């Protein structure tokens, strides 16, 4: 589903060029859930951005769903993010002017993949039934994150990229949301690459990778 071949990413800094990813190789199969761990500043988020086509590598090749990202133009990349890749961030980035129901349907509507039955299931399992007509600012942080998860999964994207999705929540809520998130990703049939600091969160996923000195290593479970 996702493939990195020798991906290199460098950033220019005042003190000189810094290599964040120094030839990363990665393969995630359809439906597989992978945790990406690493120290702060190790390049985890950069890797995620590259996978979503939000940034471009300096060298190497990235494939998502069989499409080489470097071959895609701006419009094709937008289409890829719309239908193939879903992003979940620590900040929920809900659309404040739309109701919870509209926020959940937003991305599915963009790629014309509304699924009322799955929507009902997501709403029920995420406990959002009573919140549908509310606006995001009327919800708690945990509720907002649930809406962001529902939005990311409703159109059953082949790949979900998540960056510390429970980072804004307390430990108890984090565990509950994470468990649900994992289940729903599975229900949607999506592959998942999740950046996290927390080994506890990584436990919910199939395998874990460790990013260190710009290279990926398999981390012990």
């Amino acid at each position: 589903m996702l493939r990195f071949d020798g991906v290199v990413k460098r950033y220019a800094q005042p003190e000189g060029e810094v290599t964040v990813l120094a030839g990363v190789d990665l393969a995630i199969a359809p439906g597989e859930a992978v945790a990406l761990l690493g120290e702060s500043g190790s390049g985890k988020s950069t890797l995620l951005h590259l996978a979503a086509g939000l940034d471009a590598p300096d060298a190497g090749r990235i494939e998502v769903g069989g499409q080489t990202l470097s071959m895609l133009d701006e419009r094709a990349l937008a289409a890829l993010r719309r239908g193939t890749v879903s992003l979940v961030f620590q900040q929920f980035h809900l659309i404040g002017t739309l109701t919870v129901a509209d926020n959940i349907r937003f991305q599915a509507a963009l790629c014309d993949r509304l699924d009322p039955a799955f929507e009902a299931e997501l709403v029920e399992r995420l406990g959002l039934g009573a919140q549908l007509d509310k606006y995001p600012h009327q919800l708690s942080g945990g509720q907002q994150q649930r809406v962001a998860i529902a939005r990311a999964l409703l159109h059953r994207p082949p790949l979900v990229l998540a960056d510390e999705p429970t980072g804004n929540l307390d430990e108890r809520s984090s565990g509950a949301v994470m468990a649900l998130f994992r289940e729903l990703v599975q229900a949607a049939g999506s592959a998942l690459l999740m950046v996290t600091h927390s080994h506890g969160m990584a436990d919910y996923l199939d395998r874990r990778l460790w990013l260190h000195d710009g290279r990926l290593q398999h981390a012990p479970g």
Partner: protein
Amino acid sequence: MRPAEPERLGGVLRALLSHYRRHPWQALFLLAGLVAGVALWSAVQVINSHARASYAEADYMLGAQATHWIRSRSGAGVAPADYIALRRAGFRQVFPVVQARVATADNAPLAIVATDLLALPTGDGGEALDEADLDWLAFIQPPYQAWYPAALAQELGVAAGDRLALHDGRRLPPAVIAAREQQGRQILMDVGAALSLLGREHFTALAVGAITPAEAARLVDALPADLQLEANQQRVDLTELTASLHTQLTAMSLLSFAVGLFIVFNAVRFSLWYRRPTLRTLRLMGVSMRALTLAVLAETLVWSVIGCALGLAAGYGISLALLPGMSATLQNLYGAVVGSEVLLDVRTVALAWALTLAGLALALAWPLLLQLRGPVIAANTAAAAWRDDARARRVLLVGAAGMVLLAVAVYWHMRTVVGGFVLLALVLFAAAWALPALLAAAQRGLGRALAGAPLARRWIVSDGRAQLPALRTAMMALLLALTANLGVETLIGSFRTALADWLDQRLGADLYVNSPRLDAPRFVADPANAGWLAAGHARTGVTLRWQGRPAKVYGLDTTTPDTHRLPLATAAPQALARWSAGAGMPPPILANEQAHYLGGLQLGQTVTLPADDGPADYTVVGFFHDYGNPYYQFYLPREALERRWHAVQPTGLALWLTPGASEAAAEAALQAAGVQPGEWSAQGDIKRLSLKIFDRTFAMTAAMNTLTLLVAGAALLTALLAILHERLPEFAQWRALGVTRRELLRVIALPLGLFVGLTWLLAIPLGALLSWLLIHDLNVMAFGWSMPMLWSPLPALKLGLLSAGIVALVLAIVLTQLTRKLPQAMAQLGSAS
């Protein structure tokens, strides 16, 4: 203050101001608003104070403020010998004046005014002319000199030393280009030069400077039988006369300042948003409220000094650019001539700074202090911003309702031009303050109407709610600018149409002659002219003072075509017939609208005018339109005028040609009768010239309007850039969800288009109301003339297109910024910051 306090204050101020080092464009917006507002305001102040200074200087101009004139009873002029005798008798205040109209080889009319510079009494031009740094000896000795104002010399293509050729081949003395321009379009020369050039032996008149009643009595005794002393009735107080115009300009400049302040509001809102964390951190670190308040005030002071200095510099430049239009206005409306050199005075600088400080206190210091007074950890979410916005909208709406009530009260008690402008300001600002609530209501209504529409459409409409807080002030500024533009355009359009119609009615004759050498009644009666002349109307007139202003009473021929078609604004039944017949006691008289609106004269009322044989009473039976005339004017049948006033002067002759007759025949006959080229004009030329003068008169108004609209455009740009920068992470997230750039632009542009469209729609009735007030109240109070209001959709459509153009331009700039900044924002998505 404790010793450590200044240092602490310095640190706080540095922390506050460091924000602008990181975000220089915010400093730029803040300055742009201040500079735009101060520049337009100060430009008008500079022009106004310069004009007033010119009026004071004009008081010294040759003859303009002569207290008396000595004229010949027979109209033959004053012999030099009589003048010399008066000077020898000790009347040093008396000086000779020769006035003549001539035409250049290209038939351009020119006025020559000549005097004896050495005879000018101190205070009547002496000091003013000293400054001209001109060669007096060369001026009074052959080959003499002709002094041209620089603008006239440029218009005629005359360089220093040139001898301008006249229509009949004579040449003026060598040209000297004078820096001073108070002489208007007149060429100044020595009396000796003028008499020899014009082939005359007599002066036109003698002017008399300041003189005591006892000296005046002695002077009357010393005059030969043919000469008489008459008070200079044409003496005017230009400052008083032009007060309304200057008030109008000041009002427009204050409007520009207000629109400029909207940019400051936007920029400040923007910088406040960004500085919340800094302020919060400072307060968490224990910086006292007192230190923060002082730092905020110090920041205000810094901005006021920089903004004011740059604004004044820009204002000076704008005033130089606007001055020609202003000069044209003043000269055309009031005959007041304003020089071309402008200077900033201390009063303008001090006022500009005070205004800037007041504006900044309102736009920067107050919101900053309010924020400081709030809780240290405040809700910093979009929802909080909307709640704040909803509260602000409610406050503005209540304020708007208050202003409407006040406006109604002012309307019923409005007596002065200043009161009229207060009313206009109340109407304009009430609408502007109500606008955010109206836009929010429209957005909500549209959202409800589209409840069943596809999500993408509902999303676009709903996003308007997120944009409104940032767009609020820009939309208010746009409404003010659009309304002012529409109101003033309708006023100008109505006035131009009224003037053109009036000219068509008034200028029915083919030729108009104004020559002191022509015996008009004899010329009209001459059988030799019967072949080409269908009718002639020789008018006579006297100048007198009525209600403290110069007033002219004209004697009209009641049988001529123009008198039959005299357009009356308001009249008693059968007014023209009664007036022609002189029926009733006191006899009927017609007065111009100025006498009605400014002089307070009513239909049917008796007006008393100072006739030669004592006060003369007349019944006012009608008021005629008299556009562009700042003075009072009355019409009597010619015989009625000459019965009560003996020293009437010919004031012009209108000639109707028989069908098929050529103008050439008429011109030949006129020249044969001693009329010189330049002393007659064809009807079409007068109409064209009048409308050209009209357009020049309103050039400055148009320029101010355009500038105000540009300032509003800048406010829109700052608002959109604020939206862009505040919401960039959100836009990046949308892009991460797969929203294309085009969809993103649609989300930004369509609500903006909706708001601009609604603002434009609201500006149309509001502009009509403004023009109605301007035409029916302000204009009448300021100038004393009325006209029908002509509403045309064209200015509204033009402004609609212009607004669309501004929005497109602003969106193009925003799109460029978006394209540049989005990749970085997308790369930072999800980072914990």
